[in-house]
């Protein structure tokens, strides 16, 4: 019994060490989304492209898709854009939310850099972004065919992120 007690400080030390070691590799800027498993928030907003009818959350239903929050003011979005173009050419369904942006600038961007988005919501006031808990761009939500949010990725999607984190989930939702 005495001997076991002598080992106690070592056990406590090891426990704390493991705990802190794990903490070294956590990214504190990655927040778990409060919306996972919840339906996409209701909205009715104009499209970025002029002359198209207003888009609502019902338009997002029907098939699994990525919903990408972007803006022309967002430098990282420019880095992400070619990757989205490539995914779109592979047949991945991507919708866009143009977050707190100037619509004319967004149209120019899409014309110059190619448009990977099927639907592109213009959220000029950022109200939809607020309902989605967006705190920076780019952010990407993965929704299933019923419009339920299944995953959220904060930051630039590059090929590695797509391959390792998002593609398996997306494929699973497509196969459903």
């Amino acid at each position: 019994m005495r001997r076991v007690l002598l080992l106690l400080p070592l056990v406590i030390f090891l426990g704390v060490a493991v705990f802190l070691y794990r903490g070294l590799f956590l990214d504190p800027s990655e927040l778990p989304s409060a919306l996972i498993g919840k339906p996409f928030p209701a909205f009715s907003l104009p499209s970025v492209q002029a002359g198209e009818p207003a888009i609502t959350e019902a338009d997002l239903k029907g098939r699994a898709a990525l919903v990408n929050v972007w803006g022309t003011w967002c430098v990282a979005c420019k880095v992400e854009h070619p990757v989205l173009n490539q995914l779109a050419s592979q047949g991945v369904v991507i919708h866009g939310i143009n977050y707190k942006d100037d619509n004319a600038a967004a149209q120019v961007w899409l014309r110059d850099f190619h448009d990977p988005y099927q639907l592109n919501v213009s959220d000029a006031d950022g109200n939809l972004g607020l309902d989605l808990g967006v705190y920076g761009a780019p952010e990407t939500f993965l929704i299933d065919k019923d419009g339920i949010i299944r995953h959220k990725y904060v930051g630039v999607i590059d090929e590695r992120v797509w391959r390792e984190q998002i593609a398996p989930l997306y494929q699973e939702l497509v196969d459903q």
Partner: protein
Amino acid sequence: MKRLIAALVFGLGLTVAHAAIDTYEFDSEAERERYRTLTEELRCPKCQNQNIADSNSPIAMDLRREIYRMLEEGRSNDEIVDYLVARYGDFVRYRPPLNSTTLLLWYGPAGLLVIGFGVVVVMLVRRRRGAARPENHSLSEAERERLASLLENRK
């Protein structure tokens, strides 16, 4: 003199600039106080070591505006906090709620204190018991005889 004037103008400019960050009008002092407490107790999701009141990031400005709007609508503090938690998660609260994941956070320190007290009490009781029975340390009759004989043999 010129310098003094320049300093004055510069100083005035600064205060004006500061006041221009947020200019919300409140109906009463109590309302202003609620706004202050709420923005100080809610955390900015982007710049994580600042509350919404301190942060200058666009998202913090949006959230301040949103909180002001809800205050004007006459919503309660709980409703406003719930509104933000539904969107940004428990993370936005500097005062975390009590649930299964935060149980250790809330009661851990008190638990450790209780355990510490327990250990001290046990140690004190043991020590006192030890002191109350000094005969434990003295030799029995047989041992005393043996000791005497050993000492005798040595001579």
